[in-house]
């Protein structure tokens, strides 16, 4: 069976992992309450989407 001949150096290992970072989600801001939201979704904070209340989020 084919097997690596040499141990990869720390440098080579870390170079491989250079692209393993997590990506930031595409955040936009709610026009109603200015909280960060995912685009094209109901705002989980105020329950508004496209200028109308979709879900009630009254917890006070």
């Amino acid at each position, binding site marked *: 069976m084919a097997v690596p001949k040499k141990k990869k150096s720390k440098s080579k290992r870390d170079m491989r992992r250079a692209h393993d970072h997590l990506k930031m989600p595409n955040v936009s801001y709610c026009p109603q309450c200015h909280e960060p939201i*995912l685009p*094209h*979704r*109901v705002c*989980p904070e105020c329950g508004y*989407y496209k200028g109308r209340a*979709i*879900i009630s989020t009254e917890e006070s």
Partner: protein
Amino acid sequence: MRHRKAGKHLGRDSSHRRAMFRNMVTSLFKYEQIETTDAKAKQLRSIAERMITLAKRGDLHARRQALAYMTDKKVTHRLFEELRERFMDRQGGYVRIIKKGNRQGDNAPISIVQLISAEEGKKKRKKKAKAETKAQMKPKEEASAAEEAKEETTAQAAAEAPAQEASPEEPDRAESEAKEEV
């Protein structure tokens, strides 16, 4: 190949899928708005709109076709009586899907499926408004044109008026002259 095979299996066999969508479309017309996953919502929309089209047709055969699919007679009745009226002057697009976010338990994307409410004639209102503005614009133009025309007529009248004023005097003069002659 899945050419021309619309729709998704959703991890169910066909009878399971059919049963699920029958229940879902019935619930949608019962509660106006339901929550489900994005994939199911998208397929539910086409079924729901088909039902509304049947309701808009409204004859006995259409009613039986709807009853054959939906699971609740009362809901079907409501669809054919109340909801039908609501969608009568709308050409499709009776159902709205709003994405809500991901579900806590399995991170599934959830959306809200809702029937367009009766008040939301926004597009139509816009069109109507446009039509109205156009109508307003046109009368204005016409009115302005009419005003211009009036002005013209008044001008003409003014021009004619002296002539008219002059012309009645002439007969008088003629009469007076005639009298003098006599």
